[in-house]
């Protein structure tokens, strides 16, 4: 954590207006994060806890009309220092004490234009993203090599076609695509899911980004291919050393690749700290949600005894009606009578309980 942060997110809130329910879905609700240079930050949480929306907010991909986004996202790299976020405050009326949005002015097209202007020269160049479904993210009608070449010519100083092609071949080899010179001319439909994901990674890294956002890079791949992609990402991490924000609901993937971990639930961070503390089964002082997530992974013991798994009761928090107290209260099984009243009525703040390890739970506060 000593290195200076590449990305610093302060109090990010991203809401979506649901017309049917006439209320805001508070997908991301007050997130503070910093990613140091060369560090890999893993974000875990169930689906619907706001992981992907955080990533989209950073990339400026939240649509202006139903989406509302406030806070600060600062990017500081070797080439550029910029506040990525055009605060929506000019375009909506917000009650700043509660963060509640009172009114959205109809004209927030200007905001969208602003976002696009700010993100120019950053999307793809400074921040690259690997998407969840590589087959959908790649153009099915253009050979993958050509797509990478195109991305290189747009996003890097290399403008000559032949040079860019050499560069694309280099990156295809770097992500361990077999026979890159042949695969260069393959269309995405001719490749397996794992190979498409490799091509996506090659494309993302080819512009030499300062920050790589990997949104569920291994979901939907087979177990064998999954471990290959994890191997590849770990390999690239040591050889290329790119700062990465890794989003996944697979705790094993996060464990294998991250330095720091943030656990998200219901739009906020519940816990944040080094991977050794948060995701190790031995370390006792952890948030009940993290503990429950770790418990629900099938372990040797369950398999041997063919026993039941430890499920977390209930479902993911509905981010429209956010409770007054702790967001995890209704599913928490570690509530004691002493703190029950607090848990129900007051939301705990993110406090540091040991160096670099902070969490949001009344259980650990005196």
């Amino acid at each position, binding site marked *: 954590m000593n290195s200076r942060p590449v990305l610093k997110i302060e109090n990010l809130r991203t809401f979506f207006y649901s017309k049917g329910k006439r209320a805001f879905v508070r997908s991301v609700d007050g997130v503070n994060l910093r990613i140091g240079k060369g560090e890999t930050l893993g974000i875990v949480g*169930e*689906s*619907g806890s706001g992981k992907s929306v955080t990533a989209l907010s950073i990339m400026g991909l939240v649509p202006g009309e139903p989406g509302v986004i406030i806070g600060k996202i600062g990017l500081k790299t070797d080439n550029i220092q910029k506040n990525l976020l055009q605060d929506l405050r000019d375009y909506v009326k917000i009650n700043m004490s509660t963060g509640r949005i009172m009114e959205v002015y109809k004209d927030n097209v200007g905001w969208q234009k602003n976002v696009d202007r700010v993100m120019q020269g950053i999307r793809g160049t400074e921040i690259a993203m690997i998407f969840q479904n590589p087959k959908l993210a790649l153009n099915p009608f253009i050979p993958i090599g050509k797509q990478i070449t195109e991305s290189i010519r747009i996003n890097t100083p290399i403008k000559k076609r032949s040079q860019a092609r050499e560069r694309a071949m280099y990156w295809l080899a770097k992500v*361990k695509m*077999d*026979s890159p010179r042949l695969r260069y001319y393959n269309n995405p439909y001719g490749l*397996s*899911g*794992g*190979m498409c994901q490799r091509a996506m990674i090659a494309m993302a890294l080819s512009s030499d980004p300062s920050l790589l956002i990997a949104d569920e890079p291994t*979901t*939907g791949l*087979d*177990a*064998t*291919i*999954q*471990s*290959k992609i*994890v*191997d590849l990402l*770990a*390999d690239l*991490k*040591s050889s290329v050393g790119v700062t990465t924000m890794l989003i996944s*609901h*697979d*705790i*094993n993937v996060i*464990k*294998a*690749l*991250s*330095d720091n971990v943030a656990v998200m639930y219901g739009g906020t961070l519940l816990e944040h700290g080094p*991977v050794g503390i948060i995701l190790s089964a031995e370390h006792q002082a952890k948030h009940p949600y993290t503990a*429950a*997530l770790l418990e*629900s*992974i*099938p372990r040797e013991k*369950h*398999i041997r005894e*063919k026993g*039941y*798994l*430890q*499920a*977390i009761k209930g*479902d*993911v928090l509905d981010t429209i009606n956010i409770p007054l107290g702790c967001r995890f209260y209704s599913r928490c099984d570690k509530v004691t009578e002493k703190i029950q009243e607090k848990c129900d009525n007051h939301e705990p703040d993110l406090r540091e309980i040991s160096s670099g390890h902070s969490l949001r739970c009344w259980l650990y506060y005196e």
Partner: protein
Amino acid sequence: MAESILEVENLRKYYLQPRGLFSPFKTEKRIIPAVDDVSFYIKKNETMGLVGETGCGKTTIGRSILKLTPVTSGRVIFNGTDITHLTPSEFRPYRRQMQMIFQDLDAALNPKMRIKSILTEALTVHHKLSEAEINHRIEELLEKVNLKKSKLSSFSGELSGGEKRRVGIARSLAVGARFLVADEPTSALDVSIQAQVVNLLKDLQKNLGLSYLFISHDLRIVELLSHKVAVMYLGRIVEMGLAGRIANAPRHPYTRILWSSLLKKKSQEATQVPSDQHDGRWGVFDFERSYSGCRFAPRCPVYEAKGNPAICSDPANAPKLSDIGNGHKVSCHFPLE
């Protein structure tokens, strides 16, 4: 030995791939053997796990058993009756007893129907029931799968992944199924929800005496739920036996690779990643590749270690699934010790 509820004998399913616009007029056609000579049986109240990589024919087996796709040859025997060549009307009473839990529930549940109508439709398609009976049965079903009654008026789009999965299971149970083909029921679910679904499947098996064919590529879940496991590679079963034996003492090189990729992931350190010499060949398997003899040979570490023995690539000598004791079957010329 308990009676077997389902027997599959020499099941084959070949797909014909058209070649070009005028393919109907051509005599030469490309055949894709999605399932090639597969035999197994499932006992009552037992779970059989079917594992393998994408495209190895797991789902095709599930679909052929339920007659959702016609088979090329072979027999499927359900409860002592050969159902392979029954007409649709003759098959109806059996359809009631065997159901499928689909992989993608966003596609399997009608987005424009409320949950109650979905369940009502499933109940009334095979039985004539009065309004009161329907309500009673739905209540029973909800209790079985642990779903809140308030969700009945929702649309499927308003439910979470776990709830949708429960509706899918409830719908299969509504017709009184005793045998379920569960096609990747836990993929694309979070670990917490996955645990709920796994527990539910276990509970239902205990209380209702269901039998499952559990198709998945999540090896841990398969090992946890199944009594028997069959490992498939390119349309063939390469190893079959009790779950514990397959996981802990695999004899086929492919099984060992599958399970070791899991172990590696478990104990992996971020900094130390063991290199794999087979990287190039990994993931480049498909039915289009020409092979002779053992299908796994091009990827097989044993084949390489033994210096490419001729028997492995001899087309006349394809390895057969042979018993090596305790019902553990393996199809390999050089089974591991």
